[in-house]
């Protein structure tokens, strides 16, 4: 019987050896391939994610925009300014991260820039892993002013610092409340107003007459127009006594009824005047003088056809939807005054204004200023030029014409007492049955630009009266 007891014991020992070898198989041999399978590990990763004390998102003066509240070791993300939802984005374990929450995720989670020793110590003490704070370039005062000025209308406001490209304010309306994202998701997806879309960087709109700024800069830089050139038109009057004139371009009539300040008969206008009056005929002529290649080239120099290198998702603006479009003379003419197949984001047009303010250099737009960890700054954004659009001389001439446009042209609703404001309006025609989009781009003060803005109010009508006052309030907030 002792023999059989020994045999039984041996059998059990063999069983233990098999179990031990299998344990080694799962814990060593298969360990890395099992733990790297995201689909299988997502429940574990979720648990891990819930326990991270994510860093805060702050505005440029340290105001808290987003932070994580820990309860029983599980974090909840809180946002103080829902109207910044398109900048901060959201952090959701169900729907992922977007915008700054996504692009700076590694810092916010504490994966980057936290020194390994303090991570080890805090880990041993049961403190949740702590992420770094991301400081935005957003100025909450300007942001609030922009938000209030735009009101409930659909549209967007972008304000940048011309020299650095720092985004001071970015409003996209309608927005969503990131605190309620998971509850509201289905509703937000269905909403025809598309509150999840960041109109400021991803909304592609017809730029209308604001694009004349690029045509003007191109014509001056290329020497096809000179600052003191004089334009002559034969004005007619329509049924209501409004002056207008027509010019045939490539067999197609270009009508201009923009000359609000001229009387019927012969009109004599300077280049500055036609810009301030936003004369389509004059800009059609300039466009034809430049030709399709140079017109497209200058649009690209201002940033068209390139995705702005900002830290949140953005769209490139387009000169034409098909490469052959500009081969037609009518197309060149209509593109030169801002219609054609042009599509631009509010951010791109803010950068056009910033480039004129910044001696012809387009700054690299950025929205994150720095990242602060417990041991100090671990990331500081360095302002740098994005593109050289035109020479400082050309930029200066365009700037003066933009100032004149605010003094006596359609852009006058943006004028600020005691400050030289530079600006250009746009009234972009969309579909025949829709009211045009109202645009304004500009900067202030003209001699030492602190802020460049682009405003779009969808289907609101005339750019000067609809978008101009919004831009004025935003610029005032920056100059306060």
């Amino acid at each position, binding site marked *: 019987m002792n023999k059989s007891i020994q045999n039984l014991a041996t059998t059990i020992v063999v069983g233990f050896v098999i179990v031990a070898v299998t344990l080694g198989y799962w*814990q060593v041999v298969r360990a890395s391939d099992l733990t790297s399978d995201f689909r299988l590990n997502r429940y574990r990763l979720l648990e891990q994610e819930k326990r991270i004390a994510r860093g805060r998102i702050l505005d440029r003066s340290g105001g808290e925009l987003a932070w994580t509240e820990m309860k029983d070791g599980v974090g909840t993300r809180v946002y103080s300014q829902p109207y910044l939802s398109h900048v901060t984005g959201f952090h959701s374990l169900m729907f992922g991260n977007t915008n700054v929450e996504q692009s700076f995720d590694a810092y916010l989670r504490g994966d980057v820039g936290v020194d390994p020793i303090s991570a080890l110590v805090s880990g041993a003490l049961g403190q949740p892993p702590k992420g770094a704070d991301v400081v935005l370039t957003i100025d909450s005062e300007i942001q609030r002013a922009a938000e209030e000025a735009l009101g409930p209308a659909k549209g967007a406001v972008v304000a940048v610092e011309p020299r650095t490209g720092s985004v001071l304010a970015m409003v996209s309306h309608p927005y969503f409340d990131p605190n309620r994202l998971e509850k509201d998701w289905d509703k937000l997806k269905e909403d025809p107003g598309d509150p999840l879309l960041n109109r400021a960087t991803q909304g592609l709109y017809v730029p209308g007459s604001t694009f004349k700024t690029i045509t003007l800069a191109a014509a001056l830089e290329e020497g096809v127009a000179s600052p003191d050139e004089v334009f002559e038109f034969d004005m007619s009057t329509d049924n209501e006594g409004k002056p207008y004139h027509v010019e045939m371009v490539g067999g197609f009539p270009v009508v201009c009824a923009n000359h609000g300040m001229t009387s019927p008969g012969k009109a004599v206008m300077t280049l500055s005047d036609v810009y301030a009056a936003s004369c389509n005929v004059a800009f059609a002529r300039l466009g034809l003088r430049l030709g399709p290649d140079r017109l497209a080239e200058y649009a690209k120099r201002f940033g068209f056809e390139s995705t702005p290198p900002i830290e949140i998702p953005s769209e490139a603006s387009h000169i034409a939807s098909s490469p052959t479009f500009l081969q037609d003379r009518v197309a060149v003419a209509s593109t030169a005054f801002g219609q054609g197949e042009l599509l631009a984001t509010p951010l791109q047009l803010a950068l056009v204004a910033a480039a004129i303010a910044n001696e012809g250099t387009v700054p690299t737009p950025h929205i994150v200023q720095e990242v602060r960890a417990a041991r100090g700054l671990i990331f500081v954004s360095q302002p740098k030029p994005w593109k050289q659009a035109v020479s400082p001389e050309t930029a200066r001439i365009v700037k003066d014409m933009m100032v004149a446009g605010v003094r006596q042209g359609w852009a006058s609703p943006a004028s600020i007492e005691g400050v030289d404001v530079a600006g250009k309006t746009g009234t972009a025609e969309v579909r025949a049955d829709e009211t045009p989009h109202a645009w304004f781009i500009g900067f202030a003060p003209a001699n030492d630009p602190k802020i460049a803005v682009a405003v779009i109010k969808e289907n609101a009508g005339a750019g000067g009266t609809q978008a101009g006052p919004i831009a004025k309030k935003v610029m005032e907030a920056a100059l306060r």
Partner: protein
Amino acid sequence: MRANAWRLDELRLILAACLLAALGVSLVSLGSRGVVSPTSLLPAVVLAASLLIGWLWLRIRCGKADQVLFPLAGILSAMGIILVFRLEPDSSVHQLIWMVTGITLMLATASFPRLLGWLKRYKYTWMIAGIGLVALTLVFGVDPNGSGARLWLGFGENVFQPSEMLKVLLVVFLAGYVDDKREIISYGTYRLGPLQLPALPYLAPMLAMWGLSILLLLGQKDLGATFLLFAAFLAVLYMASSRLIYVWGGLAMFLVAAYGAYHVSNHVATRVDVWLNPWVDSDGKGYQIIQSLLAFASGGIFGTGLAKGYPKTVPAVHTDFPLAAIGEELGLLGTLGVLALYLLFVYRGFKIALEARNTFSQMLAAGVTASVGIQTLIIAAGNIKLIPLTGITLPFISYGGSSLVTNFIIVGLLLRISQESAGAP
């Protein structure tokens, strides 16, 4: 001799268990709450106190009994306390109460002089009582944890799982029965036509008791306990007879039964399919076993550290997958260490069996030892997908009162047997 008289080896090992418990609960407390408060050390204090009192009692009443088993059970229970404290802190007080109950019953068993004779003489009574209790669960069974099977008997707040006790009672009965009929079982033959078979008629009472137990547990869908009882039966039969034909015959019967069950019972079929390929339904039926494997994998060699992993993604981790939690937080070193502790336990158990004075004691010791070893293998192999998963406990470590109390009673039996083989009352 002096050292032996004072059971100093046992005391040293018990101090190691106390140290382990104190270290474990401190780390859990530090890892999950950031502080070690005096109240969080309470589980370690209760464990230390009961182990030391146990040592003192054995020192007075069972001076010659084995000195390694009780501390080993203590170390394993300390692992269990740490684990429950880590995974279900609110339940650790229950586990502590059961541990104290278990140790008390162990001491009673170990110091009961006429116990062994009494067990053998009334073997049918014990067996029928055990079967009766399990049968009661068919009528009055409750399912306190929502596991889907009504395996427990409730007394107010307290529940008890009789199938845990049944495995000990079955071994007691088998040891007693084969001790009486050993000669016939070993050498007797029964002619069936040209075939020479073992003495089947003499096996009948034994087969009846065993068959009844198996049927009951099958009726309760308690597959783990069924398998364990099956294996324990074969083990005792083999030890008594030294005839391999019982083992082969038993295994053949098992395979036939398993094949039949697979085709008849959905419950069994599901378990087997999930075992064969859990990956096709990794979010559904395969979820539990795959999360268990992920827990082992994410622990790697050294583990994440106590309270630093995510073992709670494995459903029922503290009752059915304690090894996965150990694998994740203590790594391969932790799981191999625990296996080594069980091996040591099994080694001491068989050593006691080999040194026992009579066949009944011998078979009882080897039988209960084998059942602890086999139970450990069944649940460990189930956790790592070597065999289909069954809801059986990891001895001493799993959260659960009946299992803990029963395993301490087994230690008590082994201590009693070793005390007697040393010639002491």
